[in-house]
């Protein structure tokens, strides 16, 4: 069975929690590449950027 099977066991999760789980499982895998920008995010870096932005959003109290 391909990977997604894992998530079927956790139907009670949010998108945030699932991305966190994936990033903890494959921290060194590539999550995102943008060729034009010339940037590359491992899952570890991707999650850490998401968390900074999420905290920034909380801080500015939109």
């Amino acid at each position, binding site marked *: *069975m*391909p990977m997604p099977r894992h998530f079927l066991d956790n139907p009670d*999760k949010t998108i945030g929690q699932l991305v966190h789980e994936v990033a903890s499982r494959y921290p060194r*895998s590539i999550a995102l590449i943008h060729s034009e920008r010339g940037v590359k995010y491992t899952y570890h870096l991707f999650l850490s950027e998401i968390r900074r932005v*999420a*905290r*920034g*959003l909380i*801080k500015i109290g939109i």
Partner: protein
Amino acid sequence: MAFKKGDRVALWAPNIPEWIISQIALAKTGAILVPIDLGAGAEDLHYILEQSGCTSLIMAGGLQHAEYIKTLSKIDYKSLLEKVIIIDRKSYPEMTSWNELMEIGDEVDPETLAKREGKVAPTDPVAIMYTSGTTGKPKGVVLDHVGLITKSTFSAMRQGLSNQDRLCLFFPLFHMFGNTCISLTGLLTGASVIMPSQTFEPSKILSTINREQCTAIYGSPSMLMALIDHPEFKPESWQTLHKGTIGGAPCPMELMRKLVKDIGISDITVAYGITEASSWITMTRPDDPLDLRVSTIGTALECNEVKILDPITGEDLPPYRQGELCTRGFLMKGYYHLPGATASAIDKEGWFHTGDLGEMDEKGYVKITGRLKDVIVREGIEIYPTEVEDILYKLPGVLEVQVFGFPHPEKGQEVAAWIKLQKGAGLSLDTLGKFTKEHVDKQRAPQYYKFVTEFPMTQSGKVQKFKLAEMARKQYLDRD
């Protein structure tokens, strides 16, 4: 003031990493993402910001010359929005830059974020995506975590994706195909999402597929055609591609044969979905024969049901009978602030009525055959406009035909055919009358004909048949 759970935040940017980072960050805080169409004008932007009640906007300055900033400045955004976050090298007064946002994020205790996340439930709304309607204003489709997660998971399984895959993402992220069917699906699988460029640029996409060794490709038939017809396209650079999905329009046999047989994207699927159903509803299987991947949209994903309903009697139809395609399972929570529209789209048993006409074979493979709202019922007889239009197109001098129904007090609906002629065409109403008498059977023949110079259109160039119906009713019935 705190950034509260359930706040609506608009996101307006081309395909850049910040789009996906914002999407997931907003989901973590419990805010609701409202994607804005890249081509939105000031009027569309204002309508969506106001209707969704967005308190803030995350945006790029523009593709080249700060076009989005210019559009934003045309509306009174300060009365709508409390905050604007700008992703740009330049800074703008009264806007928070992306870098500042991250820096001040460092001042916030991780525990605060964890607490906030703890309050978010899988059944909470996570996005409101606006559908472009051919009949009136766009409607906001409210989607929850569990719907997007489940559809992404089941479509990943159907495609045979794994964490080893590298998904090429060039479909616009503001569209559900981009942000859910490619990006979220890839990320929840632990795969890599490869973005060649900010917008659809065939040359950059081709070099990225080659350099990054993408394994899956996604797009509409016309996008894929633009790539393989490009002078820089080399089939040998696509050797790593084996998977993916074609959606948005029927895939011509010629294109499918090239992709699967000549280029070797052996496992590519065809899928059908709508925003209201949290993305894909049906998909073909990676090993389906080519003709099934061309003539059908596959079978229902295992997480949802599909049935074909008689639009008049409301009864379920047996195989090979045309009716309205309905689906149940992981649907939207509703249209935002439109309870009436929601109630008329989802029936009491939880079926969403798509408005698409289709038929199913005994193995569950579905074909799409047209749009329901265009079907005319006159004195109990169903008339399919495209069938009559196809006959009228055979007349020399005809440039465009619209066959449509409008309400009639005794017959239910009456039929009109309005025709645009080619320049200098000498077609008369008499000739037209004779031709239709010979070629269109009486039960389906239009009652009224008219030559016109233009049709009412949407901004995206689709004819608004409901406007034609209003015009015809006034013209033909108010006089009777």
